[in-house]
């Protein structure tokens, strides 16, 4: 599946993943990078629903938290090892995703967003208040690390970083490969024009369900690693802000691209660090970036950079750019009010 077109970005990406810890050597920076990778997994998962299938979900924050809690409860209270909880977390996430998908199957536009918001909120409330199971605000700790660090000669944070680098690479590659199958093709067709997609024989509901299920599973997987990375989890890990943050990251980073989730994650991890000394301005800045992106760069930063790269490339080749080419702003069509 590696073609001439994608070999160069792939090598660049892998090199970046491998070499970044050598550029930012302090354990603090490496921890930030690890967090970035975990977010990127969540965002990549959500992007399958939002970017590829056009299903704008805000429930993924709750699904992320669900994954974290499955791992947290099974390791802390039941005593399982991390790796045996991972498949359970993914399965629970996917099943809940399937449930959400079935409930919202026929909803479009605003209704879908609000329905996922409501269902996500319900999951959050249950996590916060089912104290017998989740310990509520007290939280759960310590969630064990995936690897016993004694056996590996690297320092613990670097080991965790490389583990997350491998996992995020697998997730991104998996999502990329899935989109290179007929499933991805059908999803794009549905996102572009669902009536036409049905007319050429694509089972719109089933394809959307499959996408939502995979996307939910990946969000839960990211949550599972997040629990282990933080070692202590409490209900805010599943709050609706996480869902909105993920959605924002994809919109800002750019939908249906490989780089978009990473760019979004970079903004959401790096920005708070830059603004650490003036934390109260952090959310204003985020909000402003969001509004500006929505108003002026509806294809996100990845879209912007694509256009910029296209322009630079065309400076050399002399071809004019076609402004319509990169537009993927077809999440959902807005119907005329009349």
């Amino acid at each position, binding site marked *: 599946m590696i073609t001439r077109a994608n070999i160069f970005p792939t090598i660049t990406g892998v090199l970046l993943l491998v070499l970044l810890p050598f550029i930012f050597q302090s354990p603090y920076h490496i921890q930030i990078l690890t967090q970035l990778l975990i977010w990127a997994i969540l965002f990549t998962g959500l992007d399958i629903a939002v970017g590829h299938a056009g299903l704008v979900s805000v429930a993924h924050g709750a699904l992320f938290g669900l994954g974290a809690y499955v791992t947290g409860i099974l390791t802390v209270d039941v005593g399982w090892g991390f790796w045996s909880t991972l498949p359970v977390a993914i399965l629970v996430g996917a099943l809940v995703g399937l449930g959400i998908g079935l409930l919202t199957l026929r909803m479009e536009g605003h209704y879908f967003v609000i329905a996922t918001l409501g269902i996500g909120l319900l999951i959050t409330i249950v996590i916060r208040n089912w104290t017998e199971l989740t310990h509520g605000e007290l939280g759960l700790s310590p969630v064990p690390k995936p690897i016993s660090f004694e056996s590996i000669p690297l320092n613990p944070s670097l080991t965790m970083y490389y583990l997350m680098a491998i996992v995020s690479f697998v997730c991104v590659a998996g999502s990329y490969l899935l989109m290179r199958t007929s499933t991805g093709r059908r999803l*794009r067709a549905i996102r572009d*024009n669902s009536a036409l997609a049905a007319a050429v*024989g694509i089972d719109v509901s089933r394809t959307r369900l499959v996408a939502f299920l995979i996307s939910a599973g990946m969000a839960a997987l990211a949550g599972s690693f997040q629990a282990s990375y933080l070692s202590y989890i409490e209900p805010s890990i599943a709050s609706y802000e996480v869902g909105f943050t993920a959605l924002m990251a994809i919109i800002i980073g750019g939908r249906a691209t490989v780089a978009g989730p990473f760019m979004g994650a970079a903004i959401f991890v790096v920005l708070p660090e830059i603004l650490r000394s003036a934390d109260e301005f952090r959310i204003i800045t985020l909000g402003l970036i969001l509004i500006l992106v929505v108003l002026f760069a509806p294809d996100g930063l990845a879209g912007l950079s694509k256009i910029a790269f296209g322009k630079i490339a065309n400076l050399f080749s002399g071809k004019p750019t076609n402004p319509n080419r990169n537009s993927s702003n077809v999440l959902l069509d807005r119907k005329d009010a009349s």
Partner: protein
Amino acid sequence: MTEWILSTENLSRSFGGLAAVDQVSFQVKKDEVFGIVGPNGAGKSTLFNLIAGVLPPSHGKIEAFGHRIDRMPTQKRCWLGIGRTFQAAQMFPTHTIGESLLSAGSAKHRGVAGWLRPVDLKSDRQEMLEFLDFIGLAGMEDLLPSELTNLQQQKLAIGMALITDPQLLLLDEPSGGLIEAEVLELLAFIKSIRVRGITIVVIDHKMRLMMNLSDRIMVMSAGKMIALDVPKKIASDVNVQNAYLGRPAGSD
């Protein structure tokens, strides 16, 4: 013995008391071009939407290839062998022409293998190029639908319907937005589809096109079928002329 491919029986659809399609029964023969015409508001589009699966009928039934289809979901009608186009050619706006055809053909491979079928199979690409050639857009596979003329968009829409391997093709207003010269080219193109052994049902109000294209024409007015015959007889039918020029039927 003639073989019926599509038939309707007392097909009716009303919207809040108004019968848009009223007790329409007809049968389409294998390998014919069956035209449906009528003035604005006659119920053509509603009839088309009933057959294509956009609307359920209020009464009556539709059968195709021996199956009851009037409650069948759209994609299953496609699997049965019914391809369709839309009024105002529908496109996948961010797909290139090549991708559009590949996407349209993506659902005919079913089962798990169909879901996981890689997008860059040589055989699929070969098929796409053949269809591209057939619809006269060879060499344009990297363009976007918005870069095509109306006629080319219409041909692409028909191409996307054809790549699903239909035996029955439903065309909704294929001449919409075309200028006279383009209508003639479209006519030649639709005739070339017949050679592939595909039965065609077409709705259009460009009478010149319909008279030339159709083997039989059904005329609708106010939701009812008022005539069904070969084009020559239709043209001289007094009721038809009246329906078109706004005179009450039978007033002469």
